[in-house]
C-alpha cells in the first residue's frame, strides 16, 4: 500500500483498525541469491538498494532479534557530512544527499529535519582547525560556515559563552545537517525492501557459515540452514563475533556507548550543538526531550549498558555548556555496542572468502551513514567491486598503510 493523505483519511474514518502490516513476516526459504546478516539500518538499507538499484530481489535479511532493536534505535539521530579527509567527505556527502530525498523515495515519513549542526570552538587553534575542515568541505561541494562568537550567540543564546575553561569563540556550522527519527529509518527501509520482494526474517540468529572450496555456500541459523551464493555481513557491534564464525579476525573492538534523553520541555535548542572539547552533543526531539551523548565508556563491552562515571561526565558537559539545564531531570539512558575500528573509519569491502562481504567498523558514526552505507554495500555485493565512494573503506588498508585516521589518534579504538 502506498501511503498518502487519502489513505490516511480513509483509515482515520475507520478508526485506524484496518492498516496492513508494513512488511511481511515470511518463513525463511531454503535458498536465496543473497543473504544480508543483520537487520539493522545498514542491513535493511543494503537490501533495499540491492532490490532498487540492482534488481536483485531474491534476498533475505536475517535479524537475530526484532527490527529496530539494535543500534539503529540506540543512537542520537544526528546526520551530517562535515568530514575532512578524502575517502570520507564524498561518501558522507552522498549519504546526506540520500537523506534529503529519502522520505519521497521510501514513501515513509522519517522526520528528516535539516536543522543544522553546529560544532563549537574555544580557542584560536581550534578555530584554525575548523577553518581548515570547513574549507575542505567546501572544496568538495559540502556546505560549511565558520561563525564568530557573536554569530553563535544569535543562534544559541543559552550557551555559557564566558565559561572560564572553555569560553565559546565561534563554531563551524553545517546548515544541511540535522536529525532524523531513527526508528522510522529502520521501518521505512524494511517496508521498502519488503515491497520489492526482500524477505525480512526476524528472530533468526546466524550461528555459522558454510564455506566450500573458499566460497560461501550458506549460513546455519537458529531457524535452520539457508543456502546463498552471496552473503553480506552488517552486524555492527557483533562484527568480530560473526566474522570469527568465518575464520576472520578484524581490526575492531566492541565498545559500549551510552545515550540519554531528558524529560520533555518546551522548545529550547533548535539545532544540533556539539562540544568537541568535552566530547558532547545535544539536540531536542520533536517530543521535547533533550537527546544527548558523549564519549564511549572506553573498555570492551557487549553488554548494551554502561557505567556511572560516563553518565556523570556527560551530564557535567551538558551543564557546562548550558548552565540552565542544571535542574532538568534526565528520563532514560541506554547503551549500544559500537564496532570501533582501529583508525576510526568504516569497512565496506569484499573479504578473503569468495562471496562473503563485510560492512563494519562504524564506530559511533554509523547512523548518519545508513543510506550511503547500504547504497555502497549493495553496489559492492551486486558487482563484486567497490564503488568509487567506498573504495577507501578497504579491509586490507591496515596492512597496506592506507588508513583513514580522521581523528588523528592512531590504532587506539577506545579513543576514536
Amino acid at each position, binding site marked *: 500500500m502506498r501511503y498518502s493523505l487519502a489513505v490516511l483519511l480513509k483509515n482515520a474514518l475507520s478508526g485506524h483498525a484496518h492498516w496492513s502490516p508494513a512488511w511481511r513476516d515470511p518463513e525463511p526459504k531454503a535458498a536465496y541469491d543473497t543473504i544480508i546478516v543483520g537487520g539493522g539500518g545498514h542491513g535493511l538499507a543494503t537490501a533495499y538498494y540491492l532490490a532498487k538499484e540492482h534488481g536483485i530481489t531474491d534476498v533475505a535479511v536475517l535479524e537475530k532479534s526484532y527490527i529496530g532493536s539494535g543500534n539503529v534505535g540506540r543512537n542520537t539521530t544526528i546526520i551530517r557530512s562535515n568530514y575532512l579527509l578524502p575517502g570520507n567527505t564524498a561518501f558522507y556527502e552522498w549519504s546526506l544527499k540520500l537523506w534529503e530525498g529519502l522520505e519521497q523515495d521510501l514513501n515513509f515519513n522519517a522526520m528528516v529535519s535539516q536543522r543544522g549542526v553546529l560544532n563549537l570552538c574555544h580557542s584560536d587553534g581550534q578555530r584554525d582547525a575548523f577553518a581548515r575542515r570547513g574549507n575542505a568541505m567546501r572544496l568538495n561541494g559540502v556546505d560549511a560556515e565558520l561563525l564568530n562568537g557573536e554569530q553563535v550567540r544569535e543562534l544559541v543564546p543559552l550557551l555559557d559563552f564566558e565559561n572560564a575553561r572553555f569560553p565559546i569563540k565561534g563554531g563551524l556550522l553545517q546548515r544541511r545537517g540535522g536529525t532524523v527519527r531513527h526508528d522510522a529509518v529502520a521501518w521505512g527501509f524494511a517496508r521498502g525492501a519488503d515491497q520489492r520482494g526482500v524477505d525480512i526474517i526476524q528472530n533468526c540468529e546466524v550461528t555459522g557459515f558454510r564455506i566450500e572450496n573458499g566460497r560461501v555456500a550458506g549460513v546455519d541459523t537458529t531457524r535452520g540452514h539457508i543456502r546463498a551464493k552471496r552473503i553480506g555481513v552488517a552486524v555492527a557491534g*557483533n562484527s*568480530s*563475533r560473526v566474522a*570469527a564464525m568465518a575464520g576472520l*579476525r*578484524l*581490526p*575492531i*573492538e*566492541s565498545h559500549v556507548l551510552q545515550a540519554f534523553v531528558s524529560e520533555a520541555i518546551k522548545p529550547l535548542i533548535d539545532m544540533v550543538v556539539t562540544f568537541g572539547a568535552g566530547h558532547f552533543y545535544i539536540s531536542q526531539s520533536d517530543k521535547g526531550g533533550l537527546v544527548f551523548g558523549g564519549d564511549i565508556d*572506553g*573498555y*570492551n*563491552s*557487549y*553488554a548494551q549498558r554502561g*557505567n556511572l*562515571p560516563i553518565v556523570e561526565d556527560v551530564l557535567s558537559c551538558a551543564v557546562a555548556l548550558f548552565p540552565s539545564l542544571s535542574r532538568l531531570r534526565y528520563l532514560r539512558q541506554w547503551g549500544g555496542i559500537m564496532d570501533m575500528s*582501529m583508525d576510526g573509519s568504516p569497512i565496506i569491502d569484499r573479504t578473503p572468502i569468495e562471496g562473503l562481504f563485510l560492512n563494519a567498523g562504524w564506530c559511533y558514526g554509523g547512523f548518519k551513514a545508513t543510506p550511503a552505507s547500504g547504497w555502497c554495500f549493495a553496489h559492492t555485493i551486486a558487482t563484486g567491486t567497490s564503488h568509487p565512494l567506498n573504495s577507501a573503506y578497504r579491509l586490507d588498508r*591496515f*596492512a597496506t598503510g592506507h588508513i583513514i585516521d580522521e581523528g588523528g589518534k592512531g*590504532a*587506539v*579504538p*577506545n579513543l576514536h
Partner: protein
Amino acid sequence: MRLPCPHCGERGNEEFVFLGSADPVRPADSEAPIEDWIDYVFLRDNPAGANRELWHHTYGCRSWIVVRRDTRTHEILGAEPARSLPPPASTSAAK
C-alpha cells in the same frame, strides 16, 4: 563497575584507564615479519565473554594490571599485576 587492584583493593573504574587486550605479544624487533606487526597493532580477538585486558591505575597506585573480565556482563573474573605477563620476545632473546 569496580576493579580489584592487586595493590589497592577494589576501586571504582573511574580511577583506571583502559589500554586494551593483554593478549597481543609485541614482535621481537623491526626484522620480524610485517604480518606479525599488522597482527599486533591492528587485529584483535574481541571476545564476547572472558577478556584479558590491561588497565592502568592512573588515579591510584599508577601500576599496570591485567584484569580478566566478562565483556557480556562486566563481571570481574580476576586481576593480577602486569609483571605476570610474558616479557616481549626481544627481552627473552636477550637473556
